[in-house]
């Protein structure tokens, strides 16, 4: 099967795959502990030794999940979610911040569009540089 479709399927199955990964690593840990018990360690010692061998379990899980792809989009979704939660948590601060940004951006945009038409863009007539202004001075 195409690798892309496999990854797409894994995206949908992500929660169940995460559980399976935990079970897979738990099995590894049990195997390692059993092997150490066979080497002559007590059950407790063997379990601790196995834990030390495998290292940071959460990190192993995370690195393995990264192999499934989608880590970038997932992190982006988490960041957006976190941002929204922060906005909801302190609504008055958020309102002021949003209003400040809106006024700032709006003001600058309005000023720029005025400058743009008046100073930067040529006038909308042919040979605009040959336009002259004529007036009467009745003084």
């Amino acid at each position, binding site marked *: 099967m195409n690798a892309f479709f496999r990854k797409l399927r894994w995206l949908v199955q992500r929660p169940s795959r995460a559980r*399976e990964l935990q*079970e897979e690593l738990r*099995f590894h840990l049990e195997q390692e502990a059993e092997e150490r018990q066979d080497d002559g360690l007590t059950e407790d010692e063997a379990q601790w030794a196995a834990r030390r061998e495998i290292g940071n379990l959460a990190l192993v899980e995370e*690195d393995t999940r*990264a192999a499934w792809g989608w880590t970038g989009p997932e992190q982006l979704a988490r960041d957006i979610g976190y941002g929204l939660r922060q906005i909801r948590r302190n609504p008055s601060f958020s309102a002021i911040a949003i209003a400040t940004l809106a006024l700032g951006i709006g003001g600058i945009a309005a000023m720029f569009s005025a400058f743009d038409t008046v100073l930067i863009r040529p006038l909308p007539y042919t040979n605009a540089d040959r336009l002259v202004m004529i007036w009467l001075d009745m003084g």
Partner: protein
Amino acid sequence: MRAHTPARVELLQGTLDLLILRTLLTGPAHGHAIAKHIQRTSEELLQVETGSLYPALHRLEAKGWIDANWERSNKGKRARFYKLTPLGRRQLATERSKWETLARAIGLILNPADQEAQ
């Protein structure tokens, strides 16, 4: 308890995939068995870190070179067994010849005298 083992060699980047594929050539195995097989077969010179093994296995699975299924281990526990796919078999052949070419090339440079003597 592992102090008797000689100094370990760091795995070169990218060689773990090759070793995993080669290990699975003899038949399906779960992660722990793969790690132990590599360790034992290399006379304990190569240590496969859990933190590199499982990401590598899942990466190979994502590429379609190996396939995973839950089966019972010889002690009756549920374990995730990996097996080589036809695609993985072809990949193993490619990686293997690449590695052998590289090893030969480096050997030629490190031991020029040997080559001149022949």
